[in-house]
């Protein structure tokens, strides 16, 4: 398994531009680092800008944490990350970001 320092992070151009437009690079980097430290079996992180079908909702930046399959049963990684996010950032920041951990590969549609 890769060490946390070598886990690759890839951003789509749209996601990178959105982070820059929002001037939230430092907050984003904290989120990446927290994901590296807390997502078990992490292989890589891909970051995308996801558009909502409802036009009144701004697009959101999603950190996809690609992980080894943790086995059966409830895995609280997403839930715990949400608790950290709301304890760390104000709503004006957290409203733009979501972390979703997945066992899917980075090149498998996300």
């Amino acid at each position, binding site marked *: 398994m890769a060490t946390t320092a070598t886990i690759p992070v890839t951003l789509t151009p749209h996601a990178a531009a959105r982070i820059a437009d929002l001037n939230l690079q430092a907050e984003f980097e904290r989120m990446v680092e927290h994901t590296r430290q807390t997502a078990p079996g992490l292989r890589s992180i891909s970051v995308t800008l996801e558009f909502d079908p409802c036009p*009144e909702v701004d697009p959101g930046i999603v950190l996809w944490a690609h992980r080894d399959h943790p086995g059966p049963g*409830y895995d609280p990684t997403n839930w715990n990350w949400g608790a950290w996010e709301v304890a760390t950032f104000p709503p004006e920041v957290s*409203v733009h970001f979501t972390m979703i951990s*997945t066992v899917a590969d980075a090149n*498998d549609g996300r």
Partner: protein
Amino acid sequence: MDGRAFLRVAGELAGGPTETHWRAAAGRACYALMLECRDALSRWGFPARKQNGHSFVRLCFTYTNDADVKHIGRALDMAVRMRNLADYQLANSGLFATDYESLQLVADCRTAIALFDVIEADAARRAAAIAAIRPPP
């Protein structure tokens, strides 16, 4: 019926045999949580508008000073993102190649609703949650 009734169906779908079941599970799980949040807002004195009702609920659960309510809001945001993928991005299986992501989403929504029940059952926590809601203009 209550919104959470959809969660039982979501669980059944997540345990189903096909990608279609797993995608449908994501939608039902998302709406179980969304409707619980919407109905709670209504009970608390913030009825959702007919227009842009979804974004109203999401923003109420984001722009609040109550950590538990915000936490539920982040779970709702994740559920909405998953539901959007499940219902609209069909070009490849992606997250829905197996049942795993839907099973986890159902469990996360169940956890969020359980936290909701803890808030509702405690008069002081409920009052604090209501006082912290800042509905969007």
